[in-house]
């Protein structure tokens, strides 16, 4: 697909109900054009993961997701051998009286015994969108390894040889910044810091995603969400939470954000008991 400008990409994302501002649209556009990973950093719930999903829809490519966690290692990210099937094959060969070790080795390190994990799958799938989600949760050793894969989109498997991508996947790396990611990795990428959406954009997103929502309600919710973000909460609501909250309000038939309903549905927006208590005790809701 030929996407000729950031504005055109923003249009396409909009068709899949993702409203990107100019910065994010330019970032995604350049990632496509330059074949560089896009490194998205920002607080939880600003729409980092969602962008990768929507890019996959726009490009009509499968989304391959690598969720990072502490202790993630190469076998879980790249590939593994299917041990059970390899053993079965050896047993079968033994029963058939085949003892030629060289031949057996060739057979059990065949591609069909290889289990592709997300990174290998992304390299073998053409086209693909690869989401490396929450890189800040993985150990720092993993970054060095990821950097290697993202540098040339080639994976070498000792028993099998080198597998290279015909078309490099579109890569989105996200971080919640709970840890500083190594600069060498960032340098390979386009870096974009994603903020909570502006008031107008948040209203537009609510209306775009929830057709049943009236403009008046969307404006009230967005205004309250902005106030909640300034309230010094443990976990300020992101756009995902505002959407959930609005949906909860709509389900209860709300046409206005009245304080009673707001309080009753607050659990959709806030995820910590301390936050709920602090908001209920403060009168933030009654000024909606």
């Amino acid at each position: 697909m030929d996407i000729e400008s950031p504005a055109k990409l923003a249009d396409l994302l909009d068709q899949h109900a993702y409203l990107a501002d100019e910065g994010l649209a330019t970032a995604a556009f350049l990632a496509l054009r330059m074949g560089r990973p896009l490194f998205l950093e920002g607080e939880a719930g600003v729409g980092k993961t969602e962008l990768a999903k929507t890019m996959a829809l726009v490009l009509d490519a499968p989304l391959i997701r690598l969720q990072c966690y502490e202790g993630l290692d190469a076998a879980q990210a790249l590939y593994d051998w299917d041990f059970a099937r390899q053993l079965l094959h050896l047993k079968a060969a033994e029963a058939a009286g085949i003892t030629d070790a060289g031949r057996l080795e060739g057979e059990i390190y065949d591609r069909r015994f290889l289990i592709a994990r997300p990174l290998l799958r992304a390299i073998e799938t053409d086209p693909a969108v690869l989401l490396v989600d929450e890189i800040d949760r993985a150990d720092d050793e993993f970054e060095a390894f990821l950097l290697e894969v993202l540098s040339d989109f080639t994976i070498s498997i000792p028993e099998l040889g080198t597998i290279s991508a015909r078309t490099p996947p579109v890569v989105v790396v996200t971080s919640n910044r709970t840890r500083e990611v190594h600069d060498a990795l960032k340098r390979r990428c386009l870096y974009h810091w994603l903020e909570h959406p502006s008031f107008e954009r948040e209203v537009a997103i609510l209306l775009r995603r929830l057709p049943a929502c009236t403009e008046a309600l969307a404006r009230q919710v967005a205004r309250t969400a902005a106030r909640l973000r300034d309230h010094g909460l443990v976990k300020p609501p992101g756009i995902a939470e505002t959407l959930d909250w609005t949906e909860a309000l709509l389900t209860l038939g709300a046409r206005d954000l009245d304080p009673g309903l707001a309080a009753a549905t607050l659990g959709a927006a806030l995820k910590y008991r301390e936050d709920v208590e602090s908001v209920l005790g403060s009168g933030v809701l009654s000024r909606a």
Partner: protein
Amino acid sequence: MRDLAATMTGFARTLRAAGVAADHERTQNLLRAVAHLDVARRDDVYWAGRLTLCATPDDLPRYDRCFAAYFGGRRAVRGPDRTATVTRHLAGGEGDGERGQEPVLATASSIEVLRQRDVAALSAAERAEVHRMLALLRARRERRLSRRLVPAHRGRLDQRRTIREALRKGEVARLRHRDHTTRPRKVVMLVDVSGSMAPYAETLLRFAHAMARTEPRATRVYSVGTRLTPITAELRHRDPGTALAEVSRAIPDWSGGTRLGEELRELLARTSVRGAIVVVASDGWERGDPALLGEQMARLSRQARRVIWVNPHKGHEDYQPLTGGMRAALPFIDDLVAGHSLAAFEELSERLSHARRPA
């Protein structure tokens, strides 16, 4: 308009002068990026530069200033010249034992006496001797299970090795195993550098340096006072004198007040302390709201593996944790230890190497 490449490299240079790590590779990325965009549009140039040259949210305000200055036709703004304005609190001064200081004659008995004495009451030469011993301290760490697997006699099946052997021998003769290895547990240390801690701050920072040197990958250190400042990178220098000089340049709020509650909140918002041992070195003279400190300590203790509070005054016989901050924090501390003498530091180090949550 001048040659595009020259304009862009000039801009990257301006950013570097302002403290953004816009290195050569990033500048090359910028040149590639503008080739795909409309350079006549100011916004396109803005985003091309921001996406390729910046690396942290801290870079963004500097980027905006430089962009306005450079493309607005005015002179480039210079970043604040930190080295010139910061007073040198620690480095090269009279208390520094690494250079020029007459070493104390260290005999076994004098060391033993010195080990127990409060560092605030030491002469410059004695303190230098304590610092020299701190530099030699092997600040070991409790180990935790790592996710990494290594060959072992029991544990999980090592499929790769089992298959390899079966191939060699023609049959599955023996199952091979592998098991988790261990890694040092992460320690996050906060050193209070406010006015009331002045007699102890340097020694505490030297202890932090010993920890960072022994377990560089598993140690994170921040200074706290009126603001939270990460100083781990500065402490990586092998030489304690150089490391301390770097630290003193990095910390902007020496000898101010303490707002530990707010700083803990920032720490928890910005990094993860899950699974870590958190060491807070402070006397608990909180200027902020003790209630906030209590709340943040509660969150800290829920996330961290263990919270150790180091209070130099704990070393004095009649010490009672009566300050507002100390009282608010106390319910959430696993261990309250002294940090006033070499012996106290050795004990702290011992606790870090065998840390277990008390039952």
